[in-house]
Each structure stands twice: as structure tokens, then as C-alpha cells.
């Protein structure tokens, strides 16, 4: 249907999208997971209540989350340039993607951990478990299904954001869709990128849900 150049471009774009999405998700969790844990335990119902820390992190998370991604993308360009050396292309896009993803992931981790039964936490405390043990073995262990569902949602959202970065030359499928579909009216190429994006989301969603179901022991 397309010539080889276009086909290669689409294949490269798919890889670029996957690369951006997965690396950003990984970095997002490197920051977001500890963030979510601290939010969950310093909350007044948590195991180490600390109003000051909670309020500061809560504010920062809300602030970052209220900036629309497209604006954040442009806003952090100087930072991106300082880190990566350029502000366009898929590697550069990882910077704003991570900044946008981390607080979002932090919130999801927080809410997953807060679902853990207080009674089980109390039981662990009664056995002499310290904070670290409770986090590692009770909170993360018991919430693992919910955390995995969170990963699935996060990766899907980041994939969507990565496509959005195409507007400013972010690389990947979004970039192709904008260049061909918007600037050159070659809608057929745009449609193909959309189909590839949909398939990618479906595959990621499917894997995530399958894993979380497989790991869930709460049903008889």
C-alpha cells in the first residue's frame, strides 16, 4: 500500500513510540513509586503520619498535574536541552514525559496502597514489623494487583502523551501523524499511525490485565 520509505518510517516510528513510552514509564516509576509510598504512609491514616511532608508532596503533585502536558512539554524545553542536548526527537521527549508521568504515577501508587486493609497492617505491627517491612511485604505485596492495573493505565497514558509530543517534533508515531496528516493532508498515513497506536494500547492493556489477574489470590 505504501512504498518502502513510508513503511520503514512507520516501523521506526512504532519503535520510537515504544522506546519513549517504556523508558518514560520506567523513569516515571523510579520517581513515582517512592513518591506514592511516601504519600500513602505520611497521610494521617498512614503508618507514619506526617502532615508537613504529606502537604508539601500533595501540593507539588497537584501543581504538576494541573499543567496540561502540551504546555509542560514546551515549558521544560530548556531543561530537556540541558539534559539531552536537544529539545526534539524521541530521547528528548523522555524528559517531559517523565516529569508528567511521575506525579500521576505517584497518585496511583498512593491510592493502590491506601486500599490495603488496615487490619492486615495492624496485624503486621502487632508482630513487631517495622515501617520498611510493612511497606515492602504488606503494602506492596497486598496491593500488587492494583499496582499492576496502575502500571497498565500509566503506560497507556504515557503512550498517549508521547503521541502528543509530535506537535513539537517529539518523534514517534505522533510526530508522523502530525507531519503527514496535519501538514501534508496525507490522511491515509495518519490513519495507519492511529491503527498502530490503538493496537499498541490494546496489547499493553491486555498484557497488564492478564498479569494482574494471574497474580490475584483474593478470589477463591
Amino acid at each position, binding site marked *: 500500500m505504501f512504498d518502502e520509505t513510508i513503511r520503514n518510517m512507520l516501523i521506526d516510528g512504532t519503535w520510537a513510540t515504544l522506546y519513549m513510552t517504556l523508558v518514560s514509564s520506567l523513569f516515571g516509576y523510579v520517581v513515582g513509586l517512592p513518591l506514592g509510598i511516601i504519600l500513602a504512609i505520611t497521610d494521617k491514616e498512614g503508618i507514619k503520619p506526617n502532615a508537613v511532608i504529606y502537604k508539601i508532596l500533595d501540593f507539588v503533585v497537584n501543581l504538576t498535574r494541573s499543567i496540561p502536558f502540551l504546555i509542560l512539554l514546551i515549558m521544560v524545553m530548556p531543561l530537556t536541552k540541558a539534559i539531552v542536548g536537544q529539545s526534539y526527537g524521541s530521547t528528548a521527549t523522555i524528559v517531559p514525559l517523565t516529569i508528567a508521568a511521575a506525579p500521576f504515577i505517584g497518585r496511583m501508587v498512593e491510592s493502590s496502597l491506601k486500599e490495603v486493609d488496615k487490619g492486615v497492617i*495492624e496485624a503486621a505491627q*502487632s508482630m513487631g*514489623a517495622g515501617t520498611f517491612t510493612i511497606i515492602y511485604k504488606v503494602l506492596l505485596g*497486598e496491593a500488587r494487583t492494583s499496582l499492576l492495573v496502575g502500571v497498565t493505565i500509566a503506560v497507556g497514558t504515557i503512550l498517549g502523551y508521547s503521541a502528543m509530543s509530535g506537535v513539537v517534533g517529539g518523534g514517534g508515531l505522533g510526530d508522523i501523524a502530525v507531519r503527514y496528516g496535519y501538514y501534508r493532508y496525507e490522511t491515509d498515513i495518519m490513519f495507519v499511525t492511529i491503527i498502530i497506536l490503538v493496537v499498541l494500547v490494546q496489547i499493553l492493556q491486555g498484557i497488564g490485565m492478564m498479569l494482574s489477574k494471574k497474580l490475584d489470590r483474593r478470589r477463591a
Partner: protein
Amino acid sequence: MEPIIRVENISKTFQANNGQVEAVKNISFSIEKGDIFGIIGLSGAGKSTLVRCLNLLEKQSEGNIYIDGKNLMKLSSKELRKQRQDIGMIFQHFNLLMQRNVVDNICFPLEIAGVGRKQAKKRALELLETVGLTEKARAYPAQLSGGQKQRVAIARVLANNPKILLCDEATSALDPQTTKSILNLLKEINQKYGITIVVITHEMAVVREICSKVAVLDHGRLVEEGTVEALFGAPKTEEAKQLILNTYA
């Protein structure tokens, strides 16, 4: 001889939205080693708060608690965690780890105590035999009945050889038949291992079934204390009479 648990003038006040709530008011009592001690009262009497003070899951606002002569308030947080391994607790809703199977649930307190994996597993299987659930070793809590879950919880609590076992409404979610079998198990544990047991309940029948001594709690106050025979034979206070009457009504 020093009692294993000595509670001295403890009070606990909670900060609620509409002012302060005094859940426990100036309570003192002692529990001798090897006793099965009942604390009975209607819901809201402060029983759960009181029992949580005994392992400092709740910190009392005033007063002192001595376990084996050691003042809990004087312990560092590390010492307290160590002390808690001597004070087991079981709960109304069992509080098992839902994502771990039975054996791994029983291994959990051993992991906390730093026991090696292999040794912990061996100990867990022994304990499963004690509570009569060997065939459920690989099952997950969601696949067990209430009584079976409580047996797992009891096996788990025994793992670190506690000196004291706190039971917070441990049979309240169970049917009468299952309640009886769990109480028998507790009695057996008390006799076999000499573990002192503190039973929190709102059911007079539970107290009569296994306790040697009992304290009656009402609105945060300890209104009557004595042997179970004395309480049932000749209750001194109106609250105790009421509780006994409720049981046979």
C-alpha cells in the same frame, strides 16, 4: 510473683471532630502468668482500645503498662518491636495476607523475626499440624472458611512462641459451632504452652467457656473484676448483671 501484665491507671483520650472522647478511663488490673483473662463489655465500652494498649498499638494518654515487669513506655521503638514478638494478637477479621498462601502467612512473623526461609517453612508446617490444617498448606485465605482462617491466624501468632496472646473479638465473626472449636484450640494452647491469654469479647458465653478471670468494662471504666464463678454467681454491679441477663435473654 510479678504478674505477667500489670496495667496501672491507664486512660486513653481520642481527639474527635466534636471534642475529646475518653475511651478508657483510669483502668488498673493485673493478669497472672498462665491465666485466661476475659475483658467483657458492650461495643463502645473501650475493650478494643484497652487491648491495643497492651502491645502499644494504641498509646495510652496516661498511666503505665508493665509486661513481665518491663514498662512498655520506657522501651525504644526497636525494643518495642522485639517485645511485640512476645505478645501475639489475633483479630475478629483474621487479618491474613490475602496474596500469600497459608504457609507463607505463617512464615510472615518468622521473616520479621529474621528466621531463615527453610527453617521458617518447617516451623510453619509444624504449626499447621497443631491447628489441624495440614491439608490447606497451599491454599489461599480466600479459599478458606472463617474458622479455618482463624486457625491459620492462630498458627501464625504461635510462630514466634509468644508469652501472651491477645484475642480481639476472635470468635465474633464465627458461628457457634466454629466458636466452640476455636475456643477449645485456645484452651489447648494455654495448657500446652502455658501462654497467657487475654480475651476481648462482648459474648458472655465465651468468657464462661474459657476464662478463669474476668473484668467488666462499661463506658471506658472497669466496673467489676474477679473470677468467672464469682461474676456469674453473684455479680456485684448493675452492668455485670445486665451483661449476664443479655446472654440468656
